[in-house]
């Protein structure tokens, strides 16, 4: 641990679920599941405690959020097909993993995402136009990281796992009770950076949770190319407890994430969560999964669709009312409309913006090139303005 300040004052004397032994949660490859694909609630002696506050209203609101981010995904895919976005990485099928985890965070927690966590960004408070602008090519960033406590999308695979660990080491130095969540996929687990992140996190007992969405495909490579053991079996070799949860079960994801984040905040160190889910769409809108994927596999997973599962649970509880469905659909349509409008009306950046923010202090090389290029542009007798970025 980096500082003697870390962990002070927040340690709870009461035993926590799963804290009684070194790693009580990885037992024979069991998948933590609190709702079956048929929508039946499955009770669990420890993890039920972590979602006991989720009543009817909260279930409806989880349903709303999952539906809204699927609608964002559908709209963004359409915008890409219409030429309004250059590219889009769909999240279809991963709604429970993204909503269950992001809804388990406190405002002061910090998130380091990959590029597919648009649903997480929505929950953290990013505006849909901010989510879209990076995929429209209007900026390299999306939201203001400090405003929503979430780093901008990371494209280098697994890189952000180290950033999250370093941020968590900073949290320790500050003596704060913040926890940090790093998202990455099954493909990233092969990257050296993810292994190094686990080494650092374990050595310094950093308050970080590694949230791996195993969506089974790294573009065209199935997860078996990445690992001969279950991904959740890897962290134990680093001394990091891990959980394998049904990533299409929003309640299981919530329970696991809350448990792990609480453990991090309490000085318990890092945790690894493998959320087993499925990328039902292409890697990005530039991908064609029919070239490498058996359509039967997609069909199998469609039967385990995370939204369908929650609908079944709501239905079994008599909560899937017309009122709820109507309200959720209206919300989803409104968010989609906002995404479309803000996307097509986004102002283009100005040519000289290309030089801005390379450095935070004046730089003679950049200034010279900017000067020369602005003179070149002016030679066409066109007004040259800098945009608002």
């Amino acid at each position, binding site marked *: 641990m980096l500082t003697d300040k870390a962990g002070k004052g927040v340690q709870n004397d009461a035993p926590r679920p799963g804290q009684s032994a070194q790693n009580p949660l990885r037992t024979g490859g069991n998948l933590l599941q609190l709702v079956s694909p048929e929508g039946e609630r499955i009770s669990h002696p420890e993890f039920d405690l972590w979602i006991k506050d989720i009543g009817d209203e909260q279930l409806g609101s989880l349903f709303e959020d999952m539906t809204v981010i699927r609608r964002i995904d559908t709209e963004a895919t359409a915008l890409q097909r219409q030429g309004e976005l250059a590219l889009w990485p769909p999240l279809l099928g991963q709604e429970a993993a993204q909503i269950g985890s992001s809804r388990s965070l406190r405002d002061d927690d910090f998130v380091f995402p990959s590029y597919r966590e648009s649903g997480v960004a929505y929950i953290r408070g990013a505006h849909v136009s901010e989510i879209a602008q990076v995929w429209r090519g209007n900026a390299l960033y999306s939201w203001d*990281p400090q405003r929503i406590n979430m780093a901008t999308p990371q494209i280098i695979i697994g890189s952000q796992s180290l*950033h999250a660990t*370093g941020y968590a080491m900073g949290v320790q*130095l500050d003596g704060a009770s913040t926890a940090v969540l790093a998202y990455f996929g099954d493909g990233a687990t092969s990257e050296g950076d993810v292994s190094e*992140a686990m080494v*650092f996190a374990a050595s310094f007992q950093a308050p970080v949770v590694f949230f791996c969405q195993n969506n089974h495909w790294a573009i065209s490579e199935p997860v078996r190319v990445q690992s001969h053991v279950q991904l959740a079996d890897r962290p134990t070799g680093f001394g990091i407890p891990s959980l394998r949860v049904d990533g299409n079960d929003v309640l299981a994801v919530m329970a696991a994430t809350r448990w792990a984040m609480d453990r991090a905040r309490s000085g318990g160190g890092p945790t690894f969560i493998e959320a087993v889910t499925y990328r039902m769409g292409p890697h990005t809108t530039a991908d064609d999964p029919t070239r490498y994927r058996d359509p039967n596999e997609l069909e199998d997973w469609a039967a385990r669709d995370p939204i369908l599962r929650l609908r079944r649970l709501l239905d079994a509880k008599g909560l899937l009312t017309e009122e709820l469905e109507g309200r959720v659909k209206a919300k989803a349509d409104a968010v989609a409309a906002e995404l479309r409008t803000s996307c097509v009306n986004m102002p283009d950046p100005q040519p000289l913006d290309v030089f801005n923010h390379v450095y935070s202090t004046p730089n003679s090389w950049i200034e010279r090139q900017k000067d020369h290029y602005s003179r070149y542009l002016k030679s066409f007798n066109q007004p040259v303005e800098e945009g608002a970025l």
Partner: protein
Amino acid sequence: MSKLTFARAINAGLRKSLENDPKVVLMGEDIGSLGGVFRVTDGLQKDFGKHRVIDTPLAESGIIGTAVGLAYRGYRPVCEIQFDGFIYPAFDQIVSQVAKMHYRTQGRVKMPITIRVPFGGGIGSPEHHSESPEAYFTHTSGLRVVAVSNPQDAYTMIQQAIASDDPVLYFEPKRRYHDKGDVEESLDLSNAMPLDKAAVVNAGSDVTLVAYGPLVKTAKDAAQAAADEGVSVEVIDLRSLAPVDYPVVEASVRKTGRLVITHEAGQSGGLGAEIAASITERCFNYLESAPVRITGFDVPYPYSKLEMHHLPDLDRILDGVDRTLGRPNSLSGLEG
């Protein structure tokens, strides 16, 4: 004013930065109780604690990647890469993250990270311990790259690098670590020469000789030897490799009409090529002869019994000076 070795001067600068800013943390392999393999961080962990002088796992990408996260959190990490040839595992984090974060976030996230790299040869080391990888980084937009040549600059510039809101690669000439020099420790940083400025360290009128890091001393010795033969060599210590302070080099070349650039790194695609091209573009009509590069060869760093052939020395530099002057030299032969 005190007399300090190069290594102690960096140590004193690090100490000052640790004292002045609680957000400064040192990270690296063996930098704690050992004080670094070159003892540059000697005593700092004892005085500032394990939470500010952090012995890291042996993972260079991990060191830089976690430094990115610490910078995100508001810290100013100072990372030591133990040897030049060990920086490549961290290359991705430096190039794709450290260098680009500020641009990516339109200035919302700063990366005030200093990466200290003992570099260059001349100490009889095995492979990977004598390299000069600076051009990889000067080619990378978003980084500042400096190379220090004397204890005073080492002391001042490490503090300026740490205080910079931009990431700085700080190259330390390891074969000069034990050289002693005067260091003004009470120097006010706001009055010091800015980090991105070059210095004329020997005034002259016949040839401009550009050097940095370990070869500044060699270049000054060469200028002295040339003076004995009646040739006046102006030596410029670049100090900053990205950006290069071209106005200082330009002013000198306009005066001398001749340019020699020397570095230990290999020639092709090296910093000397960039400087030769830039000065030719800017001062073509002032040049009396083609710019000359005296550099390491385009070979992997050789085994130590051959390194004296690879490294530019006083005589090879003078040979280059003679070439620009049309005096007899190894390429033209004795007739000149």
